[in-house]
């Protein structure tokens, strides 16, 4: 039971973070708050993927004595899985790109309707 909780508790906290971002996206009326919620959601998903790559007792995915021991076999279990890190580097950059486009659309909405609140915008559209 204790092993189960120690192995799983951080997944549960990531889900709590994701749900905080999701609530901000669907529940808050302010557009900037919605964008902040989207940022929190994306960061929580990236955190989940990075945590999949963890291994107990392994070190960073950088070969320390690579040039000295050229012929020596490399232990797979001695290094953290580098694949999630690579994919999440791409995801972080895409995250900032979506943030920029979302903020540009938010600024244009403010210039047209002079408010950032969703209900006032919907009232002005009708």
């Amino acid at each position, binding site marked *: 039971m204790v*092993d*189960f909780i*120690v*192995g*799983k508790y*951080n*997944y*549960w906290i990531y*889900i*709590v973070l*994701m*749900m905080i971002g*999701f*609530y901000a996206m*669907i*529940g808050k009326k302010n557009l900037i708050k919605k964008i902040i919620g989207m940022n929190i959601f994306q960061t929580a998903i990236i955190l989940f993927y990075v*945590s*999949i*790559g*963890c*291994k*107990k*007792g*392994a070190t960073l*995915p*950088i*070969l*320390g004595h*690579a*040039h000295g021991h*050229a012929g020596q*076999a*490399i232990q*797979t*279990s001695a*290094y953290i*899985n*580098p*694949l*999630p*890190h*690579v994919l999440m*580097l*791409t995801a972080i*950059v*895409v995250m900032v*790109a*979506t943030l*920029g*486009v979302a903020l*540009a*659309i938010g*600024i*244009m909405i403010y210039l047209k309707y002079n408010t950032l609140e969703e209900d006032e915008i919907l009232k002005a559209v009708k």
Partner: protein
Amino acid sequence: MKILNLIVVVITGAILIYGTMDMPGWGDPDSPASLHVSPRYITKTMEETATPNMVTSVLADYRAYDTLGETTVIFTAGMACILLLRKRRNGHG
């Protein structure tokens, strides 16, 4: 309305927590994610790319087309921002 949002969020979170029950524990060296593709990258990166940093060798050598696509995404986002925020000449459009 606030209550409805909270109910949706709690149900989604409960389904996701139910989904973690079958996942391998945190830091398990025998998890499926660290057995299948990544040993190839870890063991062969020095002799194939001569880069000690595995993340860099996978990012810029094995999966360089992925990085090229990422650059396209950033370019498209920058163009979208410029087109949205440019000065309008005659008030509309």
